Structures are given as C-alpha cells and as structure tokens.
C-alpha cells in the first residue's frame, strides 16, 4: 500500500525527472551531503538551496576555519571551482574530495543543484 502511494505521488510530481545518469552524477555529492530536505543529515552541510547561499553560513554546522571565515556566495561559478578542487580553493577545508567528473558533467551537476527545488525535492504529503 505504501509503495503504491509512493508510486502515485511520484507520477503526480514527475513533470521533469532526474534521469538516472543525473542520479549517478549526484552521487558525487550524496555520499556526504543531503540534497533534499528529507535526506538524512550527512557529515557535510546540506546542499538544499545551496545556490546563492553565503559560504560557511549554515547555523550550527561545524565548518572549518577556512569556510567559516569565507566571504563569498555559492553561485555556479564558485561552485564549479569548488568541485574542481575544493582544497585548493579554500586550503584547510574539511571537504576532502578528488573530482572525477568531466567539465560537461560538472555543468550538468551544477544545473541539478540549482534546480534542486523543482527536481530533487520529494513531493510533500
């Protein structure tokens, strides 16, 4: 019964669905970050509404000094540099990440992150 409900809700909300290739791109983030409000908290800060959020600004998240003292906004440009090499962009960050995505895949991933409200959020009951 519950599965049927999930299925029907899915139908209702799925005007534009993340394809599974998109899902495999998102796995570059989801190991450590929540990407939807309903996700379990990861060790990294939530990426829900990440675009246009000031860096290091989530209340109660234990940021590294490198990000707590950062003075910039997460936009497509800064996020791209971050994904390419977070530890060179802000030495001392706790995010240990070695990028395996191509430039084109990073573009698609950034698009997914910026559209997260529309595409990734689960339907509310």
């Amino acid at each position, binding site marked *: 019964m*519950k*599965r049927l409900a*999930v*299925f029907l*809700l*899915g*139908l209702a*909300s*799925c005007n534009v*669905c*993340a*394809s*599974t*290739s*998109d*899902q*495999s*791109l*998102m*796995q*570059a983030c*989801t*190991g*450590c970050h929540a*990407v*939807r409000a*309903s*996700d*379990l*908290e*990861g*060790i*990294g800060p939530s990426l829900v509404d990440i675009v246009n959020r000031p860096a290091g600004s989530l209340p109660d998240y*234990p940021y*590294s000094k490198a990000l707590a003292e950062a003075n910039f906004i997460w936009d497509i440009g800064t996020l791209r540099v971050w994904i390419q*090499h977070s*530890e*060179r962009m802000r*030495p*001392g960050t*706790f995010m*240990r*990440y*070695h990028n*395996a*995505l191509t430039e084109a895949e990073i573009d698609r991933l950034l698009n997914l992150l910026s559209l997260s409200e529309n*595409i*990734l*959020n*689960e*339907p509310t009951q």
Partner: protein
Amino acid sequence: MQRRPFLQLLGMTAATASCPLAVRAGRGKRVVVIGAGLAGLSASYMLERLGYDVVLLEATQRVGGRVRTLDNIKGRPEGGANVLGPNYGRAIAYAKTLGVKLSPPPRPRGSGLLINSTYIPSSDWSESTKNILPSHLNHWMPDQARTLMLPKALVGSSDWLSADQQQWDYSALRFFQEQGLDAEVLDWFARNNSYGNSLEDTSLLNLMRVSESIQTAIAMRQPTLVVTGGNSRLPEAMANALKTKIVFGAAISEYEATGSEAIVRTRQGEEFRADAVLFAIPLTTLRDVLFQPKLPSLVAELIARTHYHKVLQSHWTLNRDNNNAPPTVVWTNGPLGRLFFNRVDDYTVHVNAWINGNDVDYWRALRRQTQRQTLEKAMAKIPNASGVLQHDIDMDWVEEPYQKGVWASWLPGDIKHIHTLKHAQGRAFFAGEHTGASYSGMEGALESAERAVLQIDRALS
C-alpha cells in the same frame, strides 16, 4: 526485514522514490562485481539504485574483506579495519542509512614504551636515558617523531597523486638517513611503520600523504568512530540492503571480453556473463586473474610488483586476579610491534600484539611456546599486565589467500603510475582502497566505488 520498502522510505535517492517511471540508465544491463569488501558492496548498492542488474561474487564465505571483527574472541576485537575517521562521510552515511550504530572507541588510559626490555611510561619518555630522538622531537613517541620530520608539501588530500609532488616519491630510508639520524633511531622508524615492509621500501610521499590525512582529521576536533558490536556489522548491513544474493565461494581465475560482452570464470569453472565487470579486489588477488585481452603492460606490471603491507595480529586473552587497568598501548622496538590492551571485564583483558612489516616473518618463524615466552617477558615489565595468558588466534593477513597483506604499499617511484590502475580496460573496471585518491582505508574503498560506478554508468548508459 523487507529491503526495498525500507530503502524507499529512507529515500536516499530522489529518482527511485519520486520518479518511478523514469528510464533507468542501467535497465537491462548487467554488471558482475567481484569482491564483497566495502568497495564491492558499495558499488553493488549504487549500481542497483541506478537500475543495473548486479551479480556480486565473493571468493570467501563472508562479506567485509579487510573489515573483520573477530566475533569468536572475548571482547570481539577487530582483526582488520580499526576505526572510522570523523571525515569518513560515506561510511558514516551508510551506517546512518542502514541503522548501524557508531560510537567513539573507549577512552585511552595512557601509553608507554618498551625499549630493549625496559618499560617507560609516556609521561617519563622525554626525560628517559633510552630516548635518543633528536632533542627537538624527544617529547614525542617514535612514530609521531617520524611523522613530524616529514616535509610538509601537500595541501590537498589528493596532491600526492599530482605530477608536481613526485619529487618526494623516493625511499623514506634515504630521506631519514639524510637527516643525520642515528642507526638506532632509523631502526625505531622502521618498526611499527604501517606503510612499507621495510623503511627502504617505504615511499616518503606515501608517508607524507598519511600524515596530511591524519592532520586534517585532527583539525576537525571530532571523535573517531567504531561500529557498535564490531566493524563487520557495517558490511553485513550493506550486504543485507542489496537486492542481489551474493555468490560465495566464487574465486575468479579468468576474464575475457568479446565485442559484445564480458565473461568471468571461476576456478571451479563456473561462468558469469555481463556488460561490465568491476574488480573490487586487492592487487594481490587481481594478480591471479588471467585477462583476455591482456592488460596494458604498465598496469600488469604494477599489479604484479606492488607490495602489500604485512600485518600479523597475535590475539591473546589475559586472565587476571586484580582489576587494575594496563595502559592502552605499548610501543616496542622488538618483535612484538605494538601491544594493545583492551579491558573486556574486571578480570579479563584482551591483548593484541600488532606486528608490522618484515617483523611479521620473524614472529611467524617462532614456535608458539617461544612467542608466549616473549610476550610473557614483555608483559612482566608492563604495569597491571600480569596474569595468565591464553592464545586466541593469530590474524595473519599475509596468509589470507584473498588478501595476502593489508593494503597496497607503493614502492618508491611508483606513485606517478598508479592512476593507470583505475582506468577502465574495455569492459573491465577497477575499485578498492588501492585506487582511493583523497582517502585510504575504508573510506578510500567507498570513494573508489563511487568513481568506478560513474565510469561504468558513463560506459553503459
């Protein structure tokens, strides 16, 4: 527990929960994953979520690979992977998602050193006449002093792989000799070194990588973690979360790729066909697989020549008539390696003599009676460590047929080549801690699985 509804409710991915009609990249495609260690389990889990049909083959009769809780010994000590770093995001996420509890390990009760049969509590070490470390480092333990002497050239976690750091990829023995260290200090630095079977075979760059990694973890000021009830509970939970039923006892001897598919054959002659094969096994086991077509010669040579680090843990139970606590760890410059003491109950202490590198060969050649006498002699010097010793098991990783060591220990000069080990070769893909970039150990295995799944999805979708 019903698996699929459980995972759907937890909703780890958007697409499977809310997009049931979306075309799945993996639909109709089959991937054979070889090795049910953390890398193979994690890759299988992710591939299934992407819609692939997964067949997971495991040579032994258990999951977890080098994660191995010794459940039959009092106190359930870890025989393999020990602790999760506070930055092991993927491992922590799996635990959370699958309902596996994590907790900080017991608080350390102090430590000491046993040097040529003299016991020195750490608190007295800097003043001890046995301490011949360079004076600016003499308030540190030998392992810490070795780390502090390393060049500090790495900033990012994967910088060790970049071309401009390869100048450091030479023998750690040469480096420490150039620092003008006394022969005895060089011997201390060779002992209990987890990254080479001898100091000569240890890459300086690899030591620098480990040091960078530890420094970042410390900077987080968060506790390390262990799995409540034993680290093996994590891979077991990952295995239970799979749709596929793991095929145990399937040791792969051959891989063959044709234009349209890949075939793997077990030693028993069983055959599995797939669109892609993921080898999530150590190089020591990959070595035994015959590839058709052949792997590029550099890759084949790296697989053949890379050393695996030798570890033998000699596990004992100490039965005592008092409940005073021995120190948590005693560093020795002798064949016993490091002695770890873990209190099981008031009158029982678990003792693990953790022996590294070429000292393993020495220990293995001793008769059990001589091993016991060696340990008893050492224990007599250590406070609150007297009692009756009972031998439990020797967890000898070198003798394990599908591991033959604990992790890849890159020979000096090889790090510039090792990126080739994660290249796809036709329908063959590769994962495992030895292909980790920003992480080693358990998290390195999970990191590698994520990268390999991306490669497979690129190739097949």
